[in-house]
Each structure stands twice: as C-alpha cells, then as structure tokens.
C-alpha cells in the first residue's frame, strides 16, 4: 500500500506526456500480438510435429524433419504396427489397462472426497478443524515417500508386531495385488484425497447456508441432503475434479511403473508401453510418434471437450486457497 502512495507524485509529473503514451500504447498493442502468437505456435509445434511424423514411414522420418512432409509419404503403417497383436505390447491392450486404472481411480476418489468435503463443511463434529488441517497439510507430500511401504504391502501384505508381545498381527493379508490395476487405482485414490477434499470443500462450503437449514427443518437427514442437494449443486466442481484426476491417472507413469512395471507385462498402461518403446535403443523409434499420439489422444479429446470445466476447477483449487 505504501508504494502506491509514494508513486502519486510521479504520476502527476508525467501527465504532460499522456499524448505520447497513446503512440506507445498503440505500438505496444500492435507489437504484443507478435510474441503471443509466436509463443502459441511454438507451444503447438512439438505436438503438431508428432502428429505429422506419426503418419510418415520409417524412412521418411529418418531422412527429413516433419516440416518436409510430402503427400506421398503418408502412411498408416505405424498405427497398424502399434495396434497389431504381434508387437510386444500392443497399444490396444495398454489402452484397456489404462482405462482399468483411470476409471476407478477417477470415480472412487470423487465419491470419497465428496463425502468428506460435505462432512468437513456441514457436519459439526469434534476435532473437525484439526482433521481438516491435517488433510490440507498432507497436500504437498511427495508421493515418492509412500511408494516403498505401499509396494511392500501389495506384495506381502501388512503386518504389525504387537508391542511388548512376541507376535505378529496380519492387518492386510498378502492378496498379491502387485502387478494389478487394483493396486494402482487404490494408490491413486489415497494420493488424490487431500487435493480432492481441498478442492471440493472450497466449493461445497460456499453453498448457501439457507438451503441446508431449511432442508434440516423439513426433516431431511445428512444422507438425503448430500444426495439430493449437494451432489446436484456440485456438478461443476465434480466435473472439474473428474477431468483433472482422469488426466492425472491416465498420464501417470511413476505409480504404474512401481506397482506394475516389472511384475505383470500384461497389465502395463499406455505410458509404460510408450516409455518401453522409447527405451528400445532406437530400434522402434519410428513407431514412437504413433504410440505417443495414441497415448495422448484420449486425454486431448477429454481436454478439448471439457476445457471449460477444467479451467474452472483449476481456478477454484488455487485462487481461493
């Protein structure tokens, strides 16, 4: 605030030059368009190049850059190869594996977090404030911190030696979940909780208080209020989080690599499949653009179709916080 005050005299001094500012402003406006569009095109260029090269034959890709494409180079061969059952990890299978992870990893966290957000916002209970602070404080925990014990749990179950007694209690049996989509979406669900609760709580706690009070007076219980009032009213933020979480889980590499990576070659999601293609000492480099484009296709469609919700969700999550 103090800095604004101290600037006032400068402003009055410069008043005589206002006409000059007009020229500067016009020049500025004209010039500002150039860098914006230059940057926008630069930002699009890599993805565009990937798309172009995915339709070029192996030789064409090796001999010249994507900007030199000629019509006769066009071929669907790369796509046929990455989808064919003969390839080591057909991308079609990987797409299904990715769906088996991303769909439950999107729906279940939304449900669980919506319950919790409603609980934190509208149910009065002891320790509510501190539990909420705990929830938000773990928002920043890097997921690497949890990976080693989680993998151990999925491989061998969870066991706790009873304190002062020579006995081990099995809390989670060795279900052999490592290498399955279940292990991955369970992990995603846990990791998504803090952000999801934070985002949904911001929205749900901002709903008008009157509707809850009148519903309570009409004898509605929490479950009915949640089901009939809160869920329908929260569709925008639920959609925003759903898009966010779907993109995140579809694009995740680390968790899938840890939980499935070496344990089960039949359950690999798309990210690992294309990363394996990339790590192939360049033998299959000509297939990479097609593979990467297939991998990116689903999130790009989701993104462009639902961009509005997504942006709204991002804003709700960060500006208010």
């Amino acid at each position, binding site marked *: 605030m103090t800095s604004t005050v101290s600037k006032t005299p400068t402003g009055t001094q410069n008043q005589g030059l206002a006409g000059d500012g007009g020229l500067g402003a016009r020049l500025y406006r004209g010039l500002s368009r150039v860098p914006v569009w230059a940057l926008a095109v630069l930002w699009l260029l890599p993805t565009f*190049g*990937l798309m172009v090269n995915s339709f070029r034959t192996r030789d064409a890709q090796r001999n010249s850059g994507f900007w030199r494409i000629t019509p006769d180079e066009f071929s669907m061969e790369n796509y046929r190869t990455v989808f064919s059952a003969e390839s080591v990890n057909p991308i079609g299978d990987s797409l299904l594996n990715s769906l088996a992870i991303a769909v439950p990893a999107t729906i279940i966290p939304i449900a669980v977090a919506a*319950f*919790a957000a409603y609980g934190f916002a509208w149910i009065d209970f002891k320790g509510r404030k501190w539990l909420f602070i705990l929830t938000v404080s773990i928002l920043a925990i890097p997921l*690497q911190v949890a990976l080693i*014990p989680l993998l151990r749990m999925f491989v061998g179950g969870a066991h706790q030696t009873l304190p002062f007694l020579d006995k081990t209690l099995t809390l989670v049996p060795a279900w052999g979940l490592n290498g399955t989509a279940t292990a991955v979406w369970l992990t995603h669900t846990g990791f998504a909780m803090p952000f999801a609760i934070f985002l949904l709580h911001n929205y749900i706690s901002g709903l008008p208080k009157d509707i809850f009070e009148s519903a309570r007076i009409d004898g509605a219980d929490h*479950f009915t209020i949640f089901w009939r009032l809160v869920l329908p009213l929260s569709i925008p933020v639920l959609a925003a989080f759903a898009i966010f979480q779907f993109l995140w889980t579809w694009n995740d590499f680390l968790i899938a690599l840890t939980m499935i990576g070496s344990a089960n070659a039949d359950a690999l999601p798309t990210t690992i499949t*294309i990363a394996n293609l990339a790590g192939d000492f360049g033998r299959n*480099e000509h297939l990479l653009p097609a593979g990467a484009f297939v991998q990116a296709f689903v999130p790009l469609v989701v993104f462009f179709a639902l961009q509005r919700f997504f942006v709204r969700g991002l804003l709700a999550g960060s500006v208010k916080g």
Partner: protein
Amino acid sequence: MTKVLTTILSVVIAVGVFTALWVGLNMIFNQATRDFTRFSALAGGVLGLVLMTVIDGNRLITSIGVRPDTFEWSALHIYLFWPIVGAAIGAAIGWFLSTLDDANMRLGFGIAAGLGIGLLIAFLLKGRYQLAMRTTPLIMWPLILGAIGVGLNLLRRRDPIKGALTGLFFGWLYGSFGGAIQGVEQANLAETLLAGGVAGALGGARLGLTSNPDIVGRAEIDQRSRAWIFVGPAFLFYSAMLILPTIQTFLLSLKNRDSTEWVLGDNYAEVFNDPDNFDTSSFGDIFGSSILPWVAFYLVAGLLIAFLLGRETAQPFNFGGAPLLPLGIAAALFSFALFSYLRGTIINNLWWVVGVTLLSTSLGLAIAKLADGVKGESVAKSFVFMPMAISMVGASIIWRLMMYQARDTSKSQTGVFNAVWVWLGDFSTSQPGKAIVGLIFLAFAGGLTYVAVRSLAKSASIAALYLVLAAIPLWVAYRTFSEGIGGYTIRDDGTFAAQTVNFVQSPPFNNFYLMMIMIWIQTGFAMVILSAAIKAVPEDFLEAAKIDGATEGQIFWRITVPQVMPTILVVATTIMVNVMKVFDFVKVTTNGQFGTQVLANAMFQEAFLNTNRGLGAALAIVLFVGVLPVMIWNVNNLLKEG
C-alpha cells in the same frame, strides 16, 4: 474381447461394492433417529456379520477378491454359513437389547449374550487357533488397560466403571490371544474357551451398562456416526496410502538395505557425502565462466537504473519496476552459472526447482498479460494450455524426437532446434547471410536505442533500461560480423563444417533443456490461473492510473503485479511442489545419465532396482523435507483464515 469384459466387470464391482457399502451404512444410521429398535437390530446384525467374516469367512474375500476365475463356487455355502449365523445372532441381540429398559436386566442379558458369543467364537477357532495362555500378559494387560480406561473416563467425567470394563475387555483380548503361546502342544480347547468366554462376558457387560438412548441421545448417535461415515472413508484412504507409509518410510530410512538392522543416520550420511549427489569440486572454475561478465553487466545496469529511478522519485534507490528486469536477468544468469559448476543429484533437483518455477511462472504471467484482450486470445491460450493434457512421458518423447534430436551432420537434421541451429550456422557464415543476420540484429538494437532516446525526456531510468536491453542484439550482431553464430565449427584446415548441439546428452546444460519440457507443460497452468487473476484486477485502478498518465509498463509493474502477487505465490508454490518430485522426464530421456540425475529417479533406482530400501527411503525423506516449508506455509494460511 474377454479383456474388455473383465476390465469393465472389475470396475463395476469395485465401484458398486463401494457405493453399496456406503449407502447401506447411511441407511442403517438413518434408522437411529426413526426407529431405534430396527437400528439396534441392524447394527447388531452387521457387527455379527463382520465379526464372523473376519474370523471364519475371510477365505471368501481372499479367494474371490483377487482370482474369481479359480474360486470354487460350489463351496460357497461353507464360507457363507458362519457369517450368516453371526448376522442373525447379532441382529437378535441388538433387537432384544433395545426392548429392555431395566438396567439390571440389560446387564444380565449383556453378560449372557457376550459369554455365549465368546464361547462360540472360541469353539470356531478349534483346530486353527488354539492357544495356551501365559500368566504374565494375561494379568498385566487387563490391569494396565483397565487402569487407563478408568483414568480416561475420570478425566472425561464419565462413569469410571464403563472405562474399566472397556479397558479390561481389550486388555484380556490382548493378554490372552496376543500373549498366548501358539502352535505348541499345550494348546487346548479349554483354555481357548476360557479366553473367549471371559472376553465375551466383559464386552457384553460393557454393552449391558448402556441404556437405550433418548431422543437427544439418538440425534447424537446420528450426528457423530454420520461425521465418520462421511469423513471416515477419505481418512482411511489417506491414512493407509499416505500418512502411515510416510512414517514407515522414515523408519525404513533409518535401517539398512533390507531393513534388518538399525543404522540410524548412515543412509543420510551416504546421501550427502556421495559426490554424485553433491559435488562442489569444480566450483572454483566458476570464475572462468563466460556468463559472469554478463551477470556483472546486468547487476551494474540494474543498480544504475535503480539509482536513476530513485532520483525521479526522490529516494536514494528505487527497485520497483524497471530495475527488476536487469536484476532479474543477472540473478537468473548467476544461478545458471552456479548450477552449472556445482554438480550432483541434489544440485540438479534445486536447479529444476528454481529454473522451472521461475520460468514457468514468469512465462505464464507474460503470456497472460500479452494475450489479455488480443484478438483470438482464447485460441492462443488454449495452444499454450494444451500440453497440460499430455503425459510427462509423452512430452519427453515428443521433445526428444521432434525438438532435440541431433543427427550426424552429414545427414539432414530431423529435430527442430538442431535444424534451425545448423541452418543459422551455415547461413551466418556465408557471405550475404552474414550481412543479413548481422543487420537484422543491428536493426533490433537500433530500434531499442531509438525508443531509449525517445523516452529520455520522460524518464532516464526507462531510457537506461532500453539501452541495457539493446546490448544483447548489439553483441549478437558483433559476433555475427566477427565470426558467425549458430551451429558450425572451423576445421583445422580452415573450412567450415556443421555442428549440432547434443541437447539431451551434453552436461551441464542438458539439465536445462530437460527442464524446458516441464516448462512447456507448466506454463499453461500458470498462464490460465494468472490470466484469470489479471482479469480480476479492478478496472477502476487501471483507469485511475491511466488518467494519472502512467505508461502501460508502469501500470503492469506497479498495479497489476502487486494485485496478483498472492496468486503468483500460489502458482509458484504449486509448481515448486510438482517440480521437486520430477521423475518422468529424466527417467524417459536420460534415466539419470549424462549428469542429469534427480532425487526422485535416484530414489526409484535405489529402492526398486538396486533393492537398497534404506537408501531409497532416505532419498524419499530428503524430498519430503524439501516440500516441508510449503506444507508449513499451507497450514499457516489455513490457521490465519481461522
């Protein structure tokens, strides 16, 4: 096709079971305020079901949950028998208890029912978990927990007898079943029955001491249980997947590679003493860096402009606005020089955090500002935002193939950057090319100088700023005329030859080129949020400044930036937290080779490939400590809000 079906089936089962459980639980607790008898019966039934499933029917969960294909469906009734019996007994007890109002009757019935259930369970354990009790734990644990129960309830001003009973119940369970000798010959049915019977009677007595709640009590049951139904699942998920594993990782980091021995700080000592992680040996060479003169130049320029600006505003120095640009450039260049001479995993991680956070945020702010109100703003912005939808693995592949590819110079380049670079080297060393490129940069410098001279009358500091900026194109023009710029080298025989940059593999700047990939993704995020914040700056402020004759630059630096500062901080911390754990880019492009290792990849390699769990855990904890300040900041903000 079967794969599609099993995929859909498993998803439907997972979601369906979860939803059914949750809705069912809500339905049961809805009855607490409506029909207490029904509620009591339902609750008893569910408890019985769960208890018997845990004790006898869990083979069902184990076998169906994971491998439905190998499960013997013909044996289903065997697995289901005891859970169903348990549910029936529980429901009956719940129903009968809710109809009893006399305190003595309740106590008697509670003890009898508890004893019966305890004996039944003990009998069921026959052949699987018979035990021979040991005296010490059997006496010690009920006493300890009982005392704790009494103490707690005295503190809470509740009935100490109830506390004692609860304590005795858990103490007896712990002491009898936990403390028993297992799998030895002395184990026998009689002792097992004793253990189960006493535990059941104690628990039943505690249950019998309750009274049927009145209307207020029922509302309280509804409220309290509802809080846990709503918040509980989330709490369970993040406790099991995040909080407990974090604690376990911390403990693992204090143990050796296969967690058999405590080594305390040894893993951390290894992390910080390893020259691969933290190498300061070539720090002295920084003074030979070609970047340092530029740092000095922009530092002096920034101070000079601050001085000039200070004279205009009657202060000794004024660092608001114009001086920030050259000072910022100086700081960025200096950290660049610093990070390229200090080497190692931890340094790389820091470089990522500083570089990506600063560049993404400032680029995002710049694009948000530049695009504001421009024709086609939303299209341009969605181009920049689009990489947010692309996976980090995909982005790494895209950049490696499309932008950074370096091929043998005898062939044509297929990566954008090397193609441009080699073309520039070719063009700027050829005769007309040299003049054209040089003149373009000269004209650029000339334009900036012209603006500087024009604004001299208005403000000396602004003029100085433009002059300082003109130094860069001037220097490039000089280089072009004297030698040439771009990707070329001069052979021993004096001929020119093309030379590519190996963006991915030549340290230390390959780190920076890898960061570009993440900046490509994160800039869109920063832009979207900052764009909204810029649009939210009150129009009045801008109008008032315009009337006062402020220039566009002044309005931006002195009104818009301070107004959106809180948002900038949020964006920067969000990106910082994301960058701290950077993994995918490095894993896919270099796998940590060529001096690009980062903590997350080192952690992955140690923990999962080298099977050194202790060291991997220690690296993870180092990451955790890195984001600790952000966590504290978050909590502080929350507490301030109240």
